[in-house]
C-alpha cells in the first residue's frame, strides 16, 4: 500500500521521541563537559614523554637519541641534545633533550615514534581537550608540556604500562647484576668499568644491546647510528 512505509517511519520516530523521556536506551547522550565517556584503553591521539619519579626534568626517560625525530613521517618532532649529562633510571649518565617539541597540528597520530623508541620514553596520550586560541604557538607543545609521569601512563594505559615497567625492571635488574658481577670480579675488567662510566661513546653501545634484547621490533643497529653525528 502506498504510504505505508511513511506511517511506519512516523511511528518509529514517535517511539523515539516519547521513549527518550522514559527509556535510558533511547537517550544515550552524555552531557559532555560535566560528564565524560571513558575512552577505550587502546585509544590514542598525540604522543607524550614519560618520566619516572617526582621530578620531571630528572626523571625524563628520553635520551635525545633522535630516532623518533628521524622516523616521524610528517616531521613534527624537534629535538636538541643537551651538552651535559644526567643519570638515567639505571644510574647511567645519558644525554637528555635540551629541547623536545612536538607540533600536534602536524602530528598525524601514527604512533611510529612510540614503536621506534628504544627507551620507552615516548607514549601515546588520550588527552583530547587540546583546543587553544593560538594556532601557531598553542599547538607546539614543549618538553615541559609533554612530560607526564609514569603514574599518569599507568592510569591511561594500565596493561601496556605494567608491561613496560616489567621490562624496565628486568633491564634494571640485569644492569645491576652486571654491575655486581663487575664489582665481584674486579681484577680483570678494572679498566672497562671506569671507562663505561666516564665516556659516552662506550656507554651508549652498552645500553643499546640491553634494550635490543628485550624489544624485538627495534633494530639493534639504531643506537650506534645515533653516535655518528648527522
Amino acid at each position, binding site marked *: *500500500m*502506498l*504510504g505505508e*512505509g*511513511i506511517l511506519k*517511519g*512516523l511511528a*518509529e*520516530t*514517535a517511539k*523515539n*521521541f516519547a521513549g*527518550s*523521556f522514559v527509556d535510558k536506551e*533511547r*537517550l*544515550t*547522550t552524555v*552531557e559532555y563537559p560535566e560528564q565524560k565517556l571513558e575512552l577505550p584503553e587502546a585509544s590514542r591521539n598525540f604522543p607524550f614523554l614519560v618520566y619516572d619519579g617526582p621530578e620531571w626534568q630528572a626523571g625524563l626517560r628520553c635520551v635525545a637519541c633522535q630516532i623518533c625525530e628521524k622516523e616521524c613521517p610528517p616531521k613534527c618532532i624537534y629535538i636538541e641534545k643537551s651538552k651535559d649529562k644526567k643519570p638515567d633510571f639505571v644510574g647511567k649518565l645519558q644525554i637528555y633533550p635540551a629541547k623536545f617539541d612536538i607540533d600536534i597540528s602536524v602530528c598525524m597520530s601514527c604512533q611510529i615514534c612510540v614503536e621506534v623508541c628504544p627507551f620507552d620514553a615516548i607514549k601515546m596520550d588520550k588527552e583530547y581537550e587540546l583546543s587553544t586560541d593560538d594556532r601557531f604557538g598553542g599547538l607546539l607543545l614543549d618538553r615541559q608540556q609533554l612530560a607526564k609521569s609514569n603514574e599518569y601512563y599507568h592510569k591511561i594505559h594500565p596493561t601496556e604500562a605494567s608491561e613496560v615497567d616489567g621490562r624496565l625492571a628486568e633491564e634494571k635488574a640485569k644492569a645491576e647484576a652486571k654491575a655486581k658481577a663487575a664489582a665481584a670480579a674486579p681484577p680483570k675488567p678494572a679498566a672497562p668499568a671506569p671507562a663505561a662510566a666516564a665516556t659516552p661513546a662506550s656507554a651508549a653501545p652498552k645500553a643499546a644491546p640491553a634494550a635490543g634484547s628485550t624489544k624485538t621490533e627495534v633494530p639493534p643497529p639504531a643506537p650506534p647510528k645515533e653516535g655518528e653525528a648527522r
Partner: protein
Amino acid sequence: MINTLDQIFVLLKHWIVGLLPGSLGAFVGILLSVAAIVAVFPGLFALTTVLERKGLGRMQNRIGPNRTGPYGILQPVADGIKSLTKEDIVPVSADAAVHFLAPLVLVVVVFMGFSVLPMGRNMQLVDMDAGLLFFFAIGASTELSIFMAGWSSRNKYSLLGAMRAVAQMISYEVPLLMSSVAVVMITGSLSLVKIVEAQNQYTWGLPHWYIFTPWGCAAFVMFAIAATAETNRSPFDLPEGESELVAGYFTEYSGFKFALFFLGEYLGMFSMSGLGTTLFLGGWSAPLAVLNSVPSWIWFFSKVMLSICVLIWLRGTLPRLRQDQLMNFAWKFVLPMTLLNLFVAALWRFMGDGLLRWIVCSAILLGAYVVVGRTEMRRKQYGPRSYRYAE
C-alpha cells in the same frame, strides 16, 4: 466575560483607536494590526526553532540544545545575537543590488500573506473578497525572490539551489491551488473569513470541518504534501540539500541576511499552516461545541502549532527525495488526485444530504488511491528500492 476574552485584542485596538482623532485613528489602527503580526510571528519563529531542534533531537536519540537558559529556551536569543553580530559578506562578483534585495523581498512578501488569515473571530487585517486568491498571488512571488538570491550570488550551488526551488515550487503550486479550489467550490467564496464561518457549525457537538468529509480529507492530505514542498521543508528540501548544495540559494548569505532567509522560511511555514488550518481545520473554531468558550485565537494558534509539530515530525522521519521522484510525484500522482478530488467535491455538492454521498465519495477516492498506489508500487517508482550492486 468569555466574549471579552475572545475579543480582547479587537477591543484593545478599538479602545486605542478611539482615543485618537479620525484619520489618525484609522492609520494607527492599521499600524497596530501590522505591528501585532510582525511581533507575533517572529516570536513564534523563535519558539519554533528551539522546539524543532529539541524535538528533532529527541527523535534522533539526543537531547538538543539545553545550555542557553533553562532547558535551552534562550537558544533563539543566542542565535539572534550571533547572526546580528556576524560579518555581512557580499561576494565580490555578486550582483550587489539584487543580492541585497532578495531577502527583503522574500520577507516582505511572506509577511503580506498573513494579512488575510483570520486568526480569531474578527481578527484579520483585511477581510478581502478574494482573500485566497491574494494569498496565492503573494505566495507565487516568493519564487522570484528565491531566484534573485540564487542568481545574484554568482555561485553554482546557489544557482542550482534556486533553480531547483523554483521548479519545485511551480510544480507544487498547481496541486496546492487545486486542492484549495475544492474548498472554494463547496463554500462558494474566496474569502477566508467566510470559509471559516462555513465550518463553524456543529451537529451533535461535532464541528463541520472540511477535513471530516471524504473530499476534504483527501484535499487536506494533498494540501499538506504540496505545502511542505512549497515551503521547502524536508522531505522536499532539495533546494537547500546541504549534502550536495551547501545551503542552496542562500549559500552566499551571512549574518542578518541569512537570518532573514531563515525567518522567511519559517514564516512561510506559518502562513501555509495557517492557510491549511483555515481551509480544512476550521480556522479559529473550536473542535467541540462545548469548547466554544475558549477564546478563538487560542484555537487558531494551537492548530497552527500542531501542524508545525507535524511538519517537524515529518522532517525527523523522512529522507530527502530525489529530483525526478519529486517531479514525478507532483505531476503524476498529486495533480491527478487533486483533479479527481475536484470531481468528487462537485459530486458531494450536488448529491444532497444523506449517507449515499459519503459512501460514493469515499469509494471513488479510496478506489483511485488504491489503484494508483498499486500501479506505482508495481512500477517500483515509489515502492521499496532494489539496488543493482548491493546484493
